[in-house]
């Protein structure tokens, strides 16, 4: 359960303003979908959340603490491409996250420690539907399976915040719908806060608890240099999605309004 606070963030490249005046309060366990036209800085924003880039001005707080200056294990990421290590098998790709933590010198586990870590990694892979493909290399997987692997790889570190940079953009609609179901399930189970950049509006509204649109309010050619993009729409999605697992009946009659949160993943419109 992690809150994120973005305070008056600016990003400039060589005097060109890309983002300006970005302020955002994100409640714990949100699923934020970031949308907007190409080049409006939503991926830049995501990279700043990741500390892969530094803001020119402003700051980002995670649970009240300023972000460190480089990527860390508490913020996981899934990119559209190059998200997994091509030289490791499916199992090794997930195992390596555990090995980094447990073996500072070699980054590799042996014997009993390895068996234990292997079990955990295999369990995570089974949860994303890759239990039968442990020995394959990523190049032998389909695009959808590679993204499942990337998700498992990120989740094994139990990040507090998960950042998704157009993770499903290259997938077929059918595969995409399946992976949406999986994503919502994992989001509910892990209770992490998710930021997802997407070009697909239906995906944004289907997965997100809140959809945030970036755009340039001033977009005349002579203005483009000095004015950047900012948040132009901020929509909370109704009905709210509750942190309950798939097909699980929520505790009856307590605080639930009339909604169908449990059935969310199967909602029509998935993956269109």
């Amino acid at each position, binding site marked *: 359960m992690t809150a994120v606070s973005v305070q008056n963030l600016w990003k400039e490249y060589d005097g060109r303003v890309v983002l300006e005046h970005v302020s955002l309060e994100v409640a714990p366990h949100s699923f934020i979908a970031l949308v907007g036209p190409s080049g409006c800085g939503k991926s830049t924003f995501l990279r700043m959340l*990741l500390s*892969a880039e530094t803001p020119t001005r402003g700051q980002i707080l995670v649970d009240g603490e300023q972000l460190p200056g*480089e*990527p*860390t*294990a508490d*913020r*996981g*990421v899934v*990119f559209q*491409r*190059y*998200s*997994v*290590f*091509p*030289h490791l098998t499916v199992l090794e790709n997930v195992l*390596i*996250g555990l*090995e*980094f*933590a447990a073996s*500072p*010198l*070699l*980054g*590799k586990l042996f014997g009993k420690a390895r068996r234990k870590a292997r079990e955990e990694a295999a369990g995570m892979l089974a949860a994303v539907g890759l239990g039968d493909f442990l020995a394959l*290399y*990523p*190049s*032998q997987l389909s695009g959808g399976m590679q993204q499942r692997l990337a998700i498992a*790889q*990120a989740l094994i*570190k139990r*990040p507090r915040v998960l950042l998704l940079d157009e993770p499903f953009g290259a997938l077929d609609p059918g595969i995409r719908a399946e992976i949406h179901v999986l994503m919502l399930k994992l989001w509910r189970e892990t209770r992490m806060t998710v930021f997802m950049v997407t070009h697909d509006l239906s995906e944004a509204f289907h997965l997100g608890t809140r959809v945030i649109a970036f755009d340039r309010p001033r977009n005349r050619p002579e203005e483009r240099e000095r004015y950047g993009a900012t948040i132009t729409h901020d929509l909370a999605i109704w009905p709210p999605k509750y942190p309950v697992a798939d097909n699980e009946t929520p505790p009856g009659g307590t605080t639930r309004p009339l909604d169908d949160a449990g059935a969310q993943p199967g909602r029509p419109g998935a993956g269109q």
Partner: protein
Amino acid sequence: MHRRLINAYPSRGASLLLSALPFLLILLAYLAGSEARLAVNPNDKLLPAFSSIGAGFSRMAFEADKRTGDVLLWVDTAASLARLLAGLAIATVTAGLLGIAVGLLPYMRSTFSGFIAVVAMIPPLSVLPILFIIFGLGETAKVALIVIGITPMILRDMILRVEELPREIMVKAQTLGASTWQIALRVVVPQMLPRLIDSLRLSLGAAWLFLIAAEAIASQSGLGYRIFLLRRYLAMDVILPYVAWITLLAFLLDYGLRLLQARAFPWFVEGRKQR
């Protein structure tokens, strides 16, 4: 309607035949030239008949030399291969380690990239006299020439390959909690090894060049030494099979490296096919 040439593929059999064709043509041209010259002058040394080439080769490969008692081809081959492999090994390890460090660490890059760019421009053969002066005429100078000749090439290639790794991969490794050392050890080095083999294969030609140059100038043994020695006697019947032998060794080395790459790094070969 004929297909465009870019879409016309030979059948399997035709493909085999075509790949043999250039070799056959060269062979035929040589035979014709040799016949013509030998018809005019039976003692012609320039294009000896295949029979005398065979005799020359078997003399070198199977008979002990009268003066030294050694079978020269094998002694020469052993001496040359020892120099070549030592040079290749030293160059590969140095360039691999330094290249990965420079490609990965901004501090190393700032320190060395300018230096490497300048050093790589020194023509290695111009350093050979210096090497002979410093190391004497022994093995060290020859190995050093090979190392100096090919290290910059492999090194620059390695730096480029490391920098070419997708930014996403490096960020991903950090989000998995890896330290710089762990990233180098488990993410960068394993991905660089097959690329190092590529680089090594490309530098094999240069390595042989420097080996033979060093042997031609100052040596008591070696394949290069032998052919330059025999040049004085116009002994084409030995020089030609020696050149063919050197070519075969070079080819086998290249082929072996390719095989090693396919065996040891299946993911790399697989991924390359998809691109």
